[in-house]
């Protein structure tokens, strides 16, 4: 239990509880079942994408193209549904996930195959993918009445009281937990994020792991693209614009280190929960939505300051001599 719930996670959980109490005290309607249902459904997509982003961050990378992949995959699914409204929703979901996989693998090939910096590659493909949404849709919107019935209703249908959207998010949480914390490939991501040279020296195939990471972020972004379009019942060029920042914010708040090698599924989950509760509470307690951006920025800064403090304390405790670094030979390969 202690390993599952680190001290940092426990602190964050307490902060979230305090935040919830404060909100409910100001506006009891927030605790109503209907509202909580909305909050959970709103949080599902952010949770999926924050977990995806965590894979990249842990491996000392970043995927800035997730928002654009969501828009492109969502648009492809929407165009399919517009052309053939009778097709089952699972086909749209498969198309979105499959196209996300291809787009993510393209990122991964550039990063792992050519050794290019992830931030440059994904900044470039963000722009390309977003432009392609415009190309395939001719800049037009695909609206609710053009989409198939099952396409629209699938995420909202319920199974055992929870929506499909929530179930998918839970499945991603469980899969990420098993993969990152209990599978060898997942543990290797932490190793290569903590020290790429050492990871190479102990025989981890860094390029293959990097390809895997960006394929995972791309696939999950593709799936989320469909879920986003179906939930908000519209697909257009600006779908999920800037969403990559929110996913990184959720990770940073959840204690995932931007320098790689550090992070956990529980923390990431709490980070997403914190942001979703905050954003959903603002309108309920009568704060203008124009405050949302500044508040999220301030929250990220506060979280990163706190993270750095705890990280420095940890490093100070571990380091006795100044680090001499790794032998140059191991970097050359």
């Amino acid at each position, binding site marked *: 239990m202690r390993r599952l719930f680190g001290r940092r996670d426990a602190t964050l959980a307490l902060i979230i509880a305090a935040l919830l109490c404060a909100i409910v005290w100001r506006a009891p309607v927030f605790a109503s079942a209907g509202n909580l249902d909305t909050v959970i459904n709103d949080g599902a997509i952010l949770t999926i994408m924050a977990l995806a982003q965590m894979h990249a961050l842990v491996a000392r990378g970043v995927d800035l193209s997730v928002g654009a992949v969501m828009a492109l995959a969502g648009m492809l699914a929407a165009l399919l549904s517009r052309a053939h409204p009778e097709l089952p929703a699972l086909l749209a979901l498969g198309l979105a996930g499959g196209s996300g996989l291809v787009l993510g693998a393209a990122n991964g090939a*550039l990063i792992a195959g050519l050794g290019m910096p992830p931030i440059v590659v994904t*900044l470039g493909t963000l722009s*390309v993918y*977003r432009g392609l949404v415009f190309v395939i849709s001719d800049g037009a919107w695909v609206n609710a009445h053009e989409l198939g019935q099952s396409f629209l209703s699938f995420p909202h249908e319920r199974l055992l009281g929870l929506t499909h959207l929530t179930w998918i998010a839970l499945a991603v949480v469980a899969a990420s937990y098993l993969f990152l914390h209990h599978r060898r490939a997942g543990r290797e991501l932490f190793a290569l994020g903590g020290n790429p040279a050492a990871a190479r020296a102990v025989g981890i195939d860094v390029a293959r792991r990097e390809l895997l990471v960006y394929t995972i972020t791309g696939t999950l972004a593709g799936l989320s693209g469909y879920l986003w379009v179906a939930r908000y019942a519209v697909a257009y060029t600006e779908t999920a614009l800037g969403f990559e920042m929110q996913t990184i914010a959720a990770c940073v708040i959840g204690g995932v280190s931007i*320098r790689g090698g550090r992070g956990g599924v529980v923390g990431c989950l709490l980070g997403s929960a914190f942001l979703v509760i905050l954003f959903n509470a603002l309108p309920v307690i009568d704060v203008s939505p*124009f405050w949302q951006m500044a508040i999220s920025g301030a929250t990220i800064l506060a979280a990163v300051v706190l993270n750095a403090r705890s990280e420095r304390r940890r490093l100070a405790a571990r380091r006795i001599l100044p680090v001499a670094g790794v032998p140059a030979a191991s970097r050359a390969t």
Partner: protein
Amino acid sequence: MIAAEDEAKTVAPARSARATPATPSRPRAGLFARWESVLVLLLVAVCAANTWASPYFLDAQNLLDSTQSFAEKALIALSMALVIIGRDIDLSIASIVALCGTVIGWLATQGVGTPGLLVASIACGTALGMFNGALVARLGLPAIVVTIGTVSLFRGISFIALGDGAYTSFPEGFDALGQGYLLGVVPYELVVLVVLAAAFHVLLHNTRVGRRLYAYGQNPDAARYSGIDVDAHRFWFFTLNGSMAGLAAALLTSRIGAARPNMASGWDLEVIAIVVLGGVGIGGGTGRMSGVILAVFVMGLLTFGLGLRNVPGIMLNIIVGALLVASVALPAILKRIEQSRRGA
């Protein structure tokens, strides 16, 4: 960004800092000389394609006027290059532009005159740059997370102040900043760009500050051991980047005659794309000002040409993104080929 583990050669730090430019980078220096030739060829190709595509392109006054549309971004690219050479990154410049624009828009309604607005915009940008710099250099936080935070914070403050409104009333003569001409021919913005580009070139390549920037961009630990106050330099380069964004904000607000919270959106990407296209390595310590200045004109004239052909702005995104990836992929592929040839 500066993790001690990244640096391999700390055995004789002072020597390794001096040794780095001498031995291993000689082939690289050749590559960069070639990179600038690639940019010149690219520039010629863009001009040729534009001339072929539109009869309005090759017109002296049109060309001079077109520089206004990219001069503001170009100004920020100059200082952004320095930040990136120093192993940092600043994603928040577009938000700094928006907040500075909002501040001077408000000051204009309070009756402040044109010179006052210009000074206020630069001062506001400088202060915001200092805020970034203090968090990154003084508190030792990763630049990418700090500036992702300030992206939302700065633009968010602008949204709180303005909502979906805008400031559109400015004093007499303010429009001359971004729309006026020197001697009735050359836009002021181009004059400012040329003067500052020269100044940045000298700063990077002919001063001690520039040499130190390369030194710590190559190897921050070695630079620290040889007595360079790395964090002070990083702080001031973030500050300078803020000042340039403040200057760009004044010019942009004057040119479009309005300050809105969503102004300059997407500039962060475009500015970084220009810098990387100009041959500045995102890993720090490499790149030259001449490359960045060439990249400014490649990107600017490309945008202008597409505009003449009525190509929608978002299509430009595809080209910019592809150029950004290609400009990094190409040298990587060349290096691979070179290596395999040497290995064989």
